[in-house]
């Protein structure tokens, strides 16, 4: 097996609550995989406060340079990085305009859906088109028998514009890391933690009168926002199904509260009724 595939397979199997620790362990075993793993394994997001604006922003591999992170609010790296690197990594022009507008949009979206939390969006230019990431983080502080929780969503986008900029192709890969737990006297400890990843692609129109660049930029923000909203809504349903439906069903498959002899008798009685009805 290819070592990189083995690393991803391992991280898909070992407890998701220890992904960061296991990732560090794999990198210590195989330093040659570090770069590839850091850009393809999603771990819980951390937030920092932008010293210039006082607003919180989220950190990931896409706004990182060494140990500095770029704030989407100030568009500056903290701590500052060398001018030469900054010229490469700090977006300007249309990419930065779209980034600012996307950040304003997801900020409203975040308040409507998350009623708190932190959001950040980062864009960067590709040789053709551009790419980006939209991030949300929310933690619920209640503890004990009421439970605690953390939600991190990471939406990575690749956008390529069709000739004439009438439409664009969007590829979205979304991961939600959902960490829930409670402790009470009834169940000493329950931990439900993990992550799910889904992908989608779509061709969407860019609405603009004539070829006004600002309309095209706005159209991208609308398309990205809507795709992220659709995907998060879908994934929320999926998470609900897996965390509360599937996990509970598997426990029920392992052990039946109702004695199995009763279950068997009921099934026989039921079959009996059905066969009589068929006569």
């Amino acid at each position: 097996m290819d070592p990189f595939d083995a690393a991803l397979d391992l991280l898909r199997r070992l407890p998701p609550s220890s992904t960061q620790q296991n990732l560090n362990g794999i990198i210590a075993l195989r330093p040659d995989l570090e770069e590839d793993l850091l850009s393809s394994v999603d771990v819980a997001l951390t937030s920092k406060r932008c010293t210039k604006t006082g607003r919180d922003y989220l950190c990931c591999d896409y706004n990182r340079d060494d140990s500095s992170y770029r704030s989407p609010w100030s568009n500056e790296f903290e701590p500052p990085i060398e001018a030469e690197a900054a010229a490469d990594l700090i977006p300007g022009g249309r990419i930065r305009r779209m980034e600012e507008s996307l950040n304003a949009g997801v900020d409203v979206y975040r308040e409507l859906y998350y009623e708190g939390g932190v959001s950040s969006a980062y864009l960067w230019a590709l040789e053709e088109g551009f790419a980006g990431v939209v991030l949300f983080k929310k933690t619920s502080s209640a503890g004990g028998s009421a439970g605690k929780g953390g939600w991190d969503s990471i939406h990575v986008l690749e956008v390529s514009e069709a000739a004439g900029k009438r439409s664009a192709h969007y590829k979205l890969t979304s991961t939600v890391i959902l960490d829930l737990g409670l402790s009470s006297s009834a169940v000493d400890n329950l931990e439900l933690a993990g992550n799910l990843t889904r992908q989608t692609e779509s061709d969407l129109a860019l609405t603009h009168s004539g070829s006004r660049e600002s309309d095209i930029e706005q159209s991208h923000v609308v398309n990205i926002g809507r795709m992220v909203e659709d995907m998060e809504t879908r994934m929320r349903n999926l998470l609900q199904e897996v965390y509360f439906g599937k996990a509970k069903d598997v426990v029920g498959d392992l052990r039946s509260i109702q004695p199995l002899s009763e279950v068997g008798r009921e099934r026989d009685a039921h079959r009996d009724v059905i066969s009589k009805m068929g006569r």
Partner: protein
Amino acid sequence: MASKGATVSSFVQSAPPGELSNVVEDIKALAPNEVRSLEPAFKKYNEEQYSTVKLPGSSEVVLVSSYNTLNDGRYFDTASQTSFETASNAQSYTLDSSHADTVRSLLKSFSAAATEHFPSSTVGVYPTDSDSSVAILLVANKYSPQNFWNGRWRSSYLLNPTGNSVTGAIKVDVHYYEDGNVRMSTSKKVELSGSSADGIVREIAKAENKFQEELNRAFSTLAEGSFKGLRRQLPVTRQRVEWEKIAGYRLGQDIGGGRSK
């Protein structure tokens, strides 16, 4: 920084139910030189997870734990009175314990009770090392790798034969990994007492039923509480976001910055 050996051993220790061989394959691909150092980790995994073994020359399935280990790397089974190395070389084994009768009657009741609640399970009853108590163990596995999930239920009880009191723990692990990695793990300590083998086994079933009902309630608590509090299904307005008009949302200007919660 942990040594390479400690790192790969920790991977083995935390392998999900039914996926140890996959984890070992991954370790082989990542660090082939470390594989031979894994023997102690395998032993620990088998004894903690109550790995099941088919008795050589028999269709009987038995479990492996720290309670039925013999010092020479062999394990013993009280029901079939056999000792075995994992998967080979079975020999007859005579139980030498002052609680041999208790072991036998518990084994009978507990096996019968297990089939009432577990579609498939393996049980074991063993006197402990110093013969001061009797261990009552159960493991139930259900693996469905083609559907990307696996589960394991473990029950462990220690009977103090002088006071007929029992302390124990129930542990359940579920792994779901279709385009993701979701793990449920839960544990519950249990204390009970009973005056006969049948009585103890009845109390165990009662305690396990209660735990399972509480666990189902805990799922609802998390679904209705923490989960709902993280992200709404729809905004309060019950309307999806109108992205075309998002620049005009008053809210956008009002919420400002600096909110960290």
